[in-house]
């Protein structure tokens, strides 16, 4: 058999089906098995906003894409090498993504007249020139599944639910992945329903056996994708939401503070609320508030009380938090505000990804209201960036905006687990009562950081009153004095600007520290930019990649670094926002490369932009 196995460096597989077909589960189980085999990977769950859209419709199609390989994988892959379509609608929506010559597995059993109509096909595309460009495997997966689980006596509907496991079995066989992790998972998940567990395992095995024995091996190759040569260590597959939640808790521990999360459910930020709500063993207090405003207000109240308040939302919710953010800025209280960005404006595209809240983060409040803004670049990166957000918040007594997005939140990647014991603690010391008759002021500042000290209710001698009204620079009492307001506005700015000297210098991710062209990115465009720059450099083009985590303030060396290139392009999943901030800060002519389709950049799109810019 071994000779039949073709070794690939990497492959992209996309599972697509109806919302009710369990494609996200199928994809995530394929991911687990792939991760355990040691391949590097990146995943992209692409699902509709509707919970259960009408069965068989194109808008009810849910997909999960995984790119995995024996090399470093930084994107979800531009075009799938293999597409699984569980019904006509899934085929209709996803076929255009499949690369020519790619493998197409369809459940022909679902290609009924009614389903074809719902998907907008007049006649079945199966066996027609429409599919000529692909290697098509038509299988009646529905029927094969029913046969496989017959002995378990499930109803027809329940039995058909095992279809995804049958398909997964087949795909695991095709890409030489192990079934054991999936079987373990099924047995745990359905521990209370052993019949269902057994049926699913049987379907999985049947799909696998079908590949091995059948009928397929003559026409279809089996592939092997090896392990990546990663740094030694213990690895785990994480999503951005998971890693970010862990980072928040680690940040709290490093500061020596309790975490109090105030949050309100919103797509795609809710997984952070869920993850932190499940971390009571680590002492996390969570509060599902009545609205977005109450969520941040509770976080501010918690910080006033001496805990680290955190709030998590997405763009529309962040908009509602704007006034309260101003209160935290004015009272100089630490709060970590997480924005899992989605397509906007308004309700926009709740389940699709975008980076269009950068202006909102940097500029979006009334008054002169500067705050530090940090952006994560990948699921694993969320951990360290969240710790940084906590560190800056408590060290500088300021709210911090932590930007992630729907893609990072839901995507998974293998991540080398960090050694928590090596993380540098940043313990908080609360304000002490003044000695003698001296009056206590809540606005005594650290000379270096300009941060005010942090009094904690319950401590005698540090009683004080603060609020959103302008405060006297020295006493903290209400002040309407014009010069004082100037001074306080200036110090709030200087405090945030000063953080530039307390963060790592901007590095060049790939390429040289000067040259013809720099591609400057932030957030989840990291993968496609990185791959595109690699390809361009392989072609001999003079291009470098700079990826910015600290958006506000920028690292102290960034201006000088950017000025060392002839040209700057900024690919963003928005209409051009970081480009504006770069122009605003440095008067550098950064050129925008924009995509606002709710889908991540393809490597090719950025590569084309690099070539065009260098040819111009």
């Amino acid at each position, binding site marked *: 058999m071994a000779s039949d196995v073709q070794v690939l460096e990497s492959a992209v597989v996309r599972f697509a089906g109806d919302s009710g077909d369990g494609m996200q589960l199928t994809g995530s189980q394929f991911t687990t098995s792939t991760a355990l085999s040691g391949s590097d990977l990146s995943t992209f769950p692409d699902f509709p906003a509707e919970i259960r859209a009408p069965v068989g419709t194109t808008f009810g199609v849910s997909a999960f894409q995984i790119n995995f390989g024996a090399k470093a994988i930084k994107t979800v892959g531009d075009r799938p090498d293999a597409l699984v379509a569980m019904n006509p609608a899934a085929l209709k929506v996803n076929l255009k993504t499949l690369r020519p010559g790619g493998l197409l597995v369809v459940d022909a059993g679902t290609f009924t007249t009614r389903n074809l109509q719902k998907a907008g096909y007049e006649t079945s595309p199966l066996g027609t020139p429409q599919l000529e460009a692909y290697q098509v495997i038509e299988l009646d997966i529905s029927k094969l599944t029913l046969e496989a689980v017959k002995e378990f006596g499930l109803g027809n509907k329940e039995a058909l639910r095992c279809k995804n496991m049958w398909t997964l079995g087949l795909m695991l066989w095709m890409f030489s992945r192990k079934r054991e992790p999936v079987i373990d998972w099924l047995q745990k998940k359905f521990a209370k329903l052993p019949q269902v567990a057994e049926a699913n395992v049987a379907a999985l095995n049947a799909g696998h056996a079908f590949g091995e024995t059948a009928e397929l091996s003559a026409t279809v190759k089996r592939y092997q994708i090896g392990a990546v040569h990663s740094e030694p260590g213990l690895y785990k597959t994480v999503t951005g939401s998971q890693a970010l939640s862990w980072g928040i808790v680690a940040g709290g521990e490093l500061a020596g503070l309790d975490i109090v999360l105030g949050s309100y459910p919103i797509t795609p930020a809710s997984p952070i609320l869920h993850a932190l709500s499940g971390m009571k063993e680590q002492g996390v207090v969570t509060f599902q508030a009545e609205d977005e405003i109450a969520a941040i207000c509770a976080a501010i109240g918690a910080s006033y009380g001496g805990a680290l308040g955190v709030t998590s939302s997405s763009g529309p919710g962040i908009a509602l938090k704007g006034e309260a953010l101003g*209160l935290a800025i004015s009272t100089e209280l630490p709060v970590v505000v997480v924005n899992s960005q989605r397509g906007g404006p308004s309700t926009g595209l709740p389940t699709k990804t975008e980076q269009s809240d950068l202006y909102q983060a940097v500029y979006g409040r009334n008054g002169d209201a500067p705050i530090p803004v940090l952006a994560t670049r990948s699921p694993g990166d969320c951990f360290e960036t969240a710790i940084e957000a906590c560190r800056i918040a408590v060290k500088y007594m300021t709210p911090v905006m932590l930007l992630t997005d729907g893609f990072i939140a839901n995507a998974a990647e293998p991540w080398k687990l960090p050694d928590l014991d090596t993380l540098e603690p940043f313990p908080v010391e609360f304000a002490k009562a003044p000695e003698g008759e001296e009056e206590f002021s809540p606005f005594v500042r650290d000379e270096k950081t300009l941060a005010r000290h942090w009094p904690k209710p319950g401590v005698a001698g540090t009683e004080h009153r603060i609020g959103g009204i302008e405060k006297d620079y020295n006493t903290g009492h209400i002040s309407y004095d014009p010069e004082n307001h100037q001074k306080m506005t200036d110090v709030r700015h200087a405090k945030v600007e000063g953080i530039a000297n307390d963060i790592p210098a901007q590095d060049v991710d790939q390429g040289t520290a000067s040259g013809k062209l720099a591609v400057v990115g932030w957030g989840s465009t990291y993968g496609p930019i990185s791959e595109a720059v690699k390809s361009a450099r392989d072609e001999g083009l003079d291009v470098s990649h700079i990826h910015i985590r600290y958006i506000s303030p920028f690292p102290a060396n960034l201006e000088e670094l950017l000025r060392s290139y002839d040209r700057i392009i900024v690919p963003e999943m928005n209409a051009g926002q970081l480009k504006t901030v770069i122009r605003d800060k440095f008067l550098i002519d950064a050129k925008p490369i924009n995509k606002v389709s709710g889908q991540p950049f393809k490597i090719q799109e950025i590569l084309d932009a690099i070539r065009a810019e260098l040819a111009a």
Partner: protein
Amino acid sequence: MNDLSTPKLTIKDFTSDQEVRWCPGCGDYAILKCMQRTLPEMGVTRENTVFVSGIGCSSRFPYYMNTYGFHTIHGRAPAVATGLKLANPELDVWVVTGDGDGLSIGGNHLLHALRRDVDLNILLFNNKIYGLTKGQYSPTSDVGTKSPSTPQGSVDPSLNPISFAIGSGARFVARTVDTAQKHMPGVFTRAHAFKGASFVEILQNCIVYNDAAWSDITEKKAAPERQLLVEHGEKMIFGAERNKGIRFNPSSFRLEVVIIGENGITEDDLLTHDESNRQLAIMLGELGANPGEPVVMGVLYAAQADHSYTQAVLGQVEAQKGKRSLKDLMYSGQTWEVK
């Protein structure tokens, strides 16, 4: 609680050095003095007491208390106070709000703080007008209130704060009035002692924009006739001559004012106040809307069963805390080693 070695605190200890900036004659002065006077009697400490407020005249209150204080943003004090209690449940947290702050822009937060029964003492100063924004009508303004925003008179019906609070699920509801220096301390003390959210409506006079809004029930002569002070277990009697009372009429299912000695009415016919009776509290809260009816003052409702939101939330955390470290959590599940 004070032990023998701690000198007893006085009104001075609870008075901040800030100049009070309410209009001369504002009802808020009386409430402030009463609070500064009553806190030492409760035996609380300054460091353990926090006043949280929103925006409006009443919300300047924290600046004048020599305790911890947080003057937040419009309507959001209950939410800030909830977070504060979750961070430190040992604190005595007072929320000071007004009819605009608490019932208009912050209605949602007040509703949920009461529903959750967060252990807060919530004081709503009701002067039936927006003061700090210069006199617009508020959600408790009477229909027909002429104001800069309603030059021909307001048309929307007013909200009864007591009905709102009970409807929201409040378990302690009381009413008092700024002129009642003898009545207020008892209400504050009861509100403070109650475990859970305690809601106190304080009828308060805005001398500039809505002067005499409550005079028909607060004037010296009118007060005995228009105010019914309820006490748990006591008959509901009022009137300058103590000859009026409240009776439940089962056929109309209403409370009605009766006169002792007329039509064979005796004290035995009158209702006895039962703080634990929520239905009764709802009816008492609405009294005063019709001519001849008194407005009810005192603790209208105080639920008996113990309940604490913060204890319940933090109890879940305490029961689990420390069972697994962050490292153990992160390193659990499906992992693999690269050598």
